[in-house]
């Protein structure tokens, strides 16, 4: 610590990070990124969790954040305890997020400051690259409890027009003097919210911002899956997400998180990402992804079977785009193999579940899926138990 800064300075940064970023990231409210933290300090924050104890005046906020994180985690798993202050990796991730958001500060968009913004973003990306993937499902769930709403961050830009002119205030309140005498001065105030990826102006290429956020999401795989229907950054099977769904518990959490999203959008996102695995010659690692799709296909088939037993018309699925159809088809293909090879299924279940799966395999996308399946290793090698 002595090499970089005093303990007090580190603690002050931690306080600022907690109050300005981590607390509103969980509870909502005003998110106030301040002076950039940098890679070195961010790593120190992660490596010395003893310095992270918050000041007594923030104790109540810590408890509120803890309760909110627990609520968030309980949406996916019935747990009663999380790490109160968060792990070191989570603090490092939060510091990196702080710097990513600060780099998008419109004040950097001036001739002599753009380099600084790029530097801050580059250091934040380097910080993210240095954070290891979650070692356990519990870690993944804990990180998700912090960063579940990272894509909900939005800036409110206010445009004030009056009889003599117009001014726009980015992320700050318009001064009261400009809003005074609204009738006399014919004041109009228009507020608009910009999502984090739509922030403008920014001092660097927007792709760098998207890449940095993508890297952040890859470090919290459960959040990555739980927001897979986002427009950008597009969901892709990363090593950490594949590692998460490779475990039984992780796959269960992932399926629960996906169940909270529109099914068609999820199928599209997962189908596109799975297809990318094969395009990028990463079929060997696609087993966990296929397992997720197979379980979703089996779940759909069971819903159809229940509806048939109740003599109800099953909900008709709208015509799906090719990615979604691919996801359903390849999931159905894997699920059919499981039904035929795994002896845990009873004969009655097989008879009920196979017809819906067969229907999913009649689509155009099913041919592609079956061709992909044929070129893959043996079934027992690719799908995790």
């Amino acid at each position, binding site marked *: 610590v002595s090499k*970089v800064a005093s303990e007090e300075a580190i603690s002050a940064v931690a306080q600022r990070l907690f109050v300005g970023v981590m607390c509103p990231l969980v509870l909502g409210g005003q998110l106030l990124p301040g*002076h950039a933290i940098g890679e070195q300090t961010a*790593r120190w924050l992660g490596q010395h969790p003893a310095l992270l104890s918050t000041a007594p005046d923030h104790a109540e906020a810590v408890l509120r954040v803890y309760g909110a994180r627990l609520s968030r985690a309980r949406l996916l798993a019935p747990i009663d305890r999380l790490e109160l202050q968060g792990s070191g990796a989570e603090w490092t991730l939060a510091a990196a997020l702080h710097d990513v958001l600060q780099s998008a*500060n419109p004040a950097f968009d001036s001739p002599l400051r753009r380099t600084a913004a790029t*530097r801050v973003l580059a250091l934040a990306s380097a910080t993210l690259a240095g954070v290891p993937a979650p070692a356990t499902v519990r870690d993944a769930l804990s990180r998700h409890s912090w960063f579940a709403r990272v894509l909900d961050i*939005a800036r409110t830009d206010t445009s004030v027009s009056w009889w003599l002119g117009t001014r726009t205030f980015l992320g700050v309140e318009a001064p009261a003097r400009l809003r005074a005498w609204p009738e006399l001065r014919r004041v109009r105030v228009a507020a608009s919210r910009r999502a984090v990826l739509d*922030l403008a102006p920014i001092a660097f290429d927007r792709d760098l911002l998207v890449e940095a956020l993508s890297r952040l999401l890859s470090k919290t795989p459960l959040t990555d899956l739980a927001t897979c229907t986002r427009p950008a950054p597009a969901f892709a099977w990363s090593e950490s997400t594949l590692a998460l769904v490779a475990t039984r518990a992780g796959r269960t959490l992932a399926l629960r998180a996906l169940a909270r999203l529109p099914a068609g959008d999820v199928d599209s996102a997962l189908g596109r990402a799975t297809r990318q695995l094969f395009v990028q010659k990463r079929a060997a690692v696609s087993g966990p992804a296929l397992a997720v799709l197979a379980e979703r296909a089996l779940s759909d088939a069971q819903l159809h079977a229940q509806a048939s037993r109740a003599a109800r018309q099953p909900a008709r699925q709208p015509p799906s785009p090719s990615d979604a159809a691919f996801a359903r088809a390849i999931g159905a293909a894997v699920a059919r193999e499981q039904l035929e090879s795994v002896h845990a299924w009873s004969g009655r279940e097989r008879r009920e579940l196979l017809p819906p799966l067969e229907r999913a395999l009649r689509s155009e996308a099913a041919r592609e899926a079956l061709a992909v399946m044929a070129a893959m290793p043996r079934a027992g090698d690719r799908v995790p138990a």
Partner: protein
Amino acid sequence: VLERIALHQTRLHTPGLGLDGKGVALGAKGLVLLPSIDRLVAFLAVYTRERSLEDLMPSLAMHVVRSKLGTREITLEFAAESSDRMDRVADTARLVGGFTFTGTSRHFVQYRDASAPFGYDATQLLATDAAVALYHQGFSQTYELERRIDLRPLLLRLMPQVDPSTRVESGLRILVAEQGLGPALVHYLVRSHVEGEVCVAEWPPESSFDESPVRRWIVRVPEVPARMRSLLHSTPGITCFVPAGPGVAVEAGYRHPVELRACPVFDAAGLVLLRGRGGEPWDIASLPPMGALTAFARVELRTSGAEAAATRDVRQADVVRVPLRVVPSTKPWRNVTATWIEPAQVPLLRRLAYALPQVTLAQARVAMTARGAFLRLQAGIEAIPLGTFFVEVHPGLYLPAGHEVLPSVGPEVLSRALGAPASRVLFVGTDARAVAVEESAFVPLEASLLAAPPWEPAVAEAIDAALAAEPIDLRVTSIGLMPLRGVDAAEPEDR
């Protein structure tokens, strides 16, 4: 053999016997046993005195039956339908000395009476192939059918009874005159200005010695003048008949024992004339077309003279026209259903609208014109105490309340004189000048009352997510003069 049916008893021995809604034992048929034909006639006479046989006719069957001892009796069968019908029949049968039974096919038990309000049940049935087996408290008897009795021949065979009162009754008369008397009778009636219709009917020869059919004149006279009655009733060769029902008439001075109007067995297109003194009825299967008596009046032609002289000068009579006046009247106000509100009072109507009940607003119809507002309310315009009240004297024609027109012409005449088309509503003022308002200009008061208030669309937003969590609002802070101060890359050993 018979036992009384108890209250709430459900099990009966007699086949085809059931309990109706009142708990009375009832089969599909009713049967009346009468000792002789005169009792049958009495039964019909009593029954038809108050009600028609029309409902019984489809199922009515009368038979002469013979018991084992050879006695002959009369049975009258009909559909039982309900205990109400059976009660009426039983009352009538009791009056004429008959017995009433009920059953379905062969076994008939005694119908209920005062001692057994729910009827009787036969505990032991007779083993018989007879057509009818009757079980009565006093006897159990089987009968064989001997022959059928049809109602129409029976009625025709019955001799009318003497009843002089029918001669003096007013109303339609049918006069039948022998062939030789017919023309004279017709001329007599024409000469006496008696209206009527006449035709000639033919009957087959009465014996093989007659060569030609028997022709008689039939005259139908709606009302015979009193002075002619004795002549028509007493002249040999002329018989006067009184209609006794559709398609049947009885000779005047006689009355049929059965009320023939209650017996729908005669064809209305034909005519059956029942004669007194034991004469055979005259039956006309289809009455020939009848002509007016006046067509048979004696015709006389002028022997000389030209055609009718043509008029040479046609002048229209002078028209008498007087101006219309509307004057106060002391007659009570009736049908006050409209008001004429002057333009100066229209603001008052606007204020009053806030106090009017919804029913009045919904039913009142208003037409706004340059002469003011015209309000119409069918339930009475008193609910809107404004303007000059008007009375609707004719559809689409209104007069001031408490006024009448002079000369006192009828509303139809007034409406015709004003000559307004049906699509306009006329309001005649006290100055006798009329204002016509298009009917289509009247619209519901509630529809024309409200000024359209300004409105703005409220866009519903998805609020579930907003309620779930407070939004994260990224605020922009100052980056300071040295935004990279203290922002360092990690040392290689820290990575």
